[in-house]
């Protein structure tokens, strides 16, 4: 491919970026201040509200002007095999990202991007913080050109590194035909939405309303909590009825929200294999494209919950080597797929997996006692004391955490397994559902063995193995097995000649 010379010329982002910047600011303003805006709209005569609004809009206007100036000063270009960005309003800064350090180049398009035919380009680098780069709006063709240029360079480098001959072998750029591993139909999407974790959404909504009540409390001086307390303590027939209506309503709302969220996020999800990389494209309004190179894959996880099991679906996560400190989720998520698709994916990523012969190791039952004490007994005693002190009848219900902990501890111990094969390691678990985490032993970075006095008394230890994309931690493992596992892993890693990434 002949690199286009204009990539070397410093250039601004697409002029359409201005519109995107405007929208970005509008969204930030609305997101940050919507409770205030709401209150101002409801109660426009409130003096405090107006002052706050004026100040907020002033700040927003200044930052908007600043960002527009920043746009005109923002240039990107390629120089000496580095992607450079020159920016800054008052102080000029130049950010150089060497191609060698670039881990992945992802495109993101929301509805506006799609409408304007531009993409946001996210360049992730290995290591050092603050060196990742994001271009807000680039024309699609230009972005693709940029990506291809950098990827071609990287591929060429890799080839040179592998054959360290004196001459450079011609670099074949093979355009492999992408293989579609799975595509989610609207029906699949419904199944996934229905079987998502609704409790989590309920908790978020609950927290959100508490936060809202706080805001209203502070801004308007309405005593929301007091009102709530009055209604709940009254316990009139009306109050009871209201509660009876509110709970199902709450459940229906959280259910609907999760369903909508799932559909928006995973709409038209397609999971592709393109030569040596895997790609997931999804989203209704925001079209997200994430890809992972096969060699970077470190951990594969597949999970099912009781609801998901009804439909026979699994959630699959593919984790890649990433800078853990960046706290950014760089895994590929396939929210729902059938067992055959999990097997097929495993087969393409780790072909030897189907021949693996695993030996299972269980967790010592003493873990149940520990879990019951920590998550059941101690909280139950504290709740009991609280209930006794407050003479609150309902609070006694909280002590039910004790039997619940017994049940959960029992289920946890029963399902937990550490499976080892000479090449692979799987950690299985799940209390109500099932989860499996697979790693290839030669990709392990380090091994830790921990033991508490309680564990040592029973001849037990905790085994932790770390990869660049996640860890397997297995407490309450037989000490002899844990040591053997550690010695074997070290032996395997140290004699391995394949690169882990």
């Amino acid at each position, binding site marked *: 491919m002949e690199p286009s010379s204009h990539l070397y010329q410093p250039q601004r982002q697409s002029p359409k970026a201005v519109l995107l910047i405007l929208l970005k600011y509008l969204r930030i303003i609305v997101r940050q201040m919507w409770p205030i805006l709401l209150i101002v709209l409801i109660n426009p005569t409130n003096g405090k509200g107006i002052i706050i609004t004026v100040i907020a809009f002033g700040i927003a206007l200044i930052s908007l002007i600043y960002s527009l100036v920043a746009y005109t000063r923002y240039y990107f270009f390629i120089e000496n095999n580095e992607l450079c960005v020159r920016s800054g309003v008052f102080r000029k800064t130049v950010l150089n990202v060497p191609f060698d350090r670039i881990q992945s180049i992802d495109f993101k398009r929301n509805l506006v991007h799609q409408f304007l035919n531009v993409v946001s380009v996210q360049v992730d680098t290995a290591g050092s913080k603050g060196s990742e780069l994001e271009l807000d709006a680039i024309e699609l063709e230009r972005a693709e050109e940029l990506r291809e240029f950098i990827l071609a360079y990287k591929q060429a480098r890799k080839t040179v590194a592998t054959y360290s001959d004196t001459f450079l072998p011609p670099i074949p750029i093979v355009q492999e035909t992408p293989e579609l591993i799975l595509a989610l139909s609207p029906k699949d999407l419904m199944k996934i939405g229905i079987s998502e974790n609704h409790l989590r959404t309920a908790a978020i909504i609950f927290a959100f309303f508490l936060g809202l009540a706080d805001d209203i409390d502070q801004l308007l001086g309405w005593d929301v909590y007091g009102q709530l307390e009055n209604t709940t303590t009254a316990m009139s027939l009306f109050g009871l009825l209201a509660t009876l209506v509110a709970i199902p309503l709450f459940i229906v709302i959280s259910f609907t929200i999760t369903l909508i969220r799932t559909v928006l996020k995973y709409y038209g999800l397609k999971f592709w294999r393109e030569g040596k990389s895997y790609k997931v494209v999804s989203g209704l309004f925001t079209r997200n494209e994430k890809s992972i190179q096969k060699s970077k894959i470190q951990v594969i996880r597949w999970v099912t919950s009781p609801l998901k099991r009804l439909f026979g679906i699994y959630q699959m996560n593919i984790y890649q080597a990433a800078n853990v400190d960046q706290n950014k989720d760089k895994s590929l998520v396939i929210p729902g797929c059938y067992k055959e698709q999990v097997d097929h994916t495993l087969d393409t990523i780790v072909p030897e997996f189907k021949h693996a012969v695993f*030996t299972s190791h269980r967790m010592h039952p003493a873990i149940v006692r520990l879990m019951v004490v920590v998550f059941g007994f101690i909280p139950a005693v504290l709740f009991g004391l609280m209930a006794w002190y407050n003479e609150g009848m309902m609070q006694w219900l909280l002590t039910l955490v004790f039997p619940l902990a017994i049940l959960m501890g029992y289920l946890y111990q029963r399902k937990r397994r550490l499976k080892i094969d000479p090449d692979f390691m799987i950690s299985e678990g799940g209390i109500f559902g099932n989860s499996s985490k697979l790693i290839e032993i030669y990709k392990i970075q380090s091994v830790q063995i921990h033991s508490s006095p309680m564990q040592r008394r029973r001849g037990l230890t905790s085994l932790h193995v770390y990869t660049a994309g996640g860890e397997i931690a297995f407490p309450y493992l037989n000490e002899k097995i844990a*040591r053997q596992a550690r010695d074997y892993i*070290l032996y395997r890693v140290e004699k391995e000649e394949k690169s882990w990434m």
Partner: protein
Amino acid sequence: MSPINELFTNDQIDLQGLPDAEQLEMIPLEPAYKTVRYISAALIAFVIITASWAIVMFQPDLAPYGYIGAGLMTLIAWWMVVYNGLAFHYMGYAIREKDITYKSGWLWKSMTTVPFNRVQHCDLRQGIIDRRFGLSKLTIYTAGGQSTDLMIPGLLPETAEKLKTFILRSTEQSIENE
């Protein structure tokens, strides 16, 4: 169900014959480091104790629970100082041909091993108290993230420097072989 005492059922290699990391001869840290541990633990303990008693003094309505709480915090802080000092005797490192191991902990023991062919980089650091006692801290980074970084404190600067050079050379060699 009978417990499985072997790691694999399909023994391809002699598991008993593998080098056993448990048999390692641990090299202890510099004795001066024990003092450093006492001092830094005592400083933290001082802050905790002062803060908890200050809260009790300025919030009289917390009594009597305030006193119980502050008393507990004092006990915990003292225990921390004692534990820190005692745990020193259980700290040590060992180097083999292809990996490095660090062991620590008195009641809660832990042992981390990093193969040289997984080392990303190393650095040497000196804290304020370390510098007074002429000690250095060697940190070995892997791609596995913060919790796997192997940190060996209480080394003489020369030893630390030597260790660092050795590790980096071994890492280079093992990567060249790949």
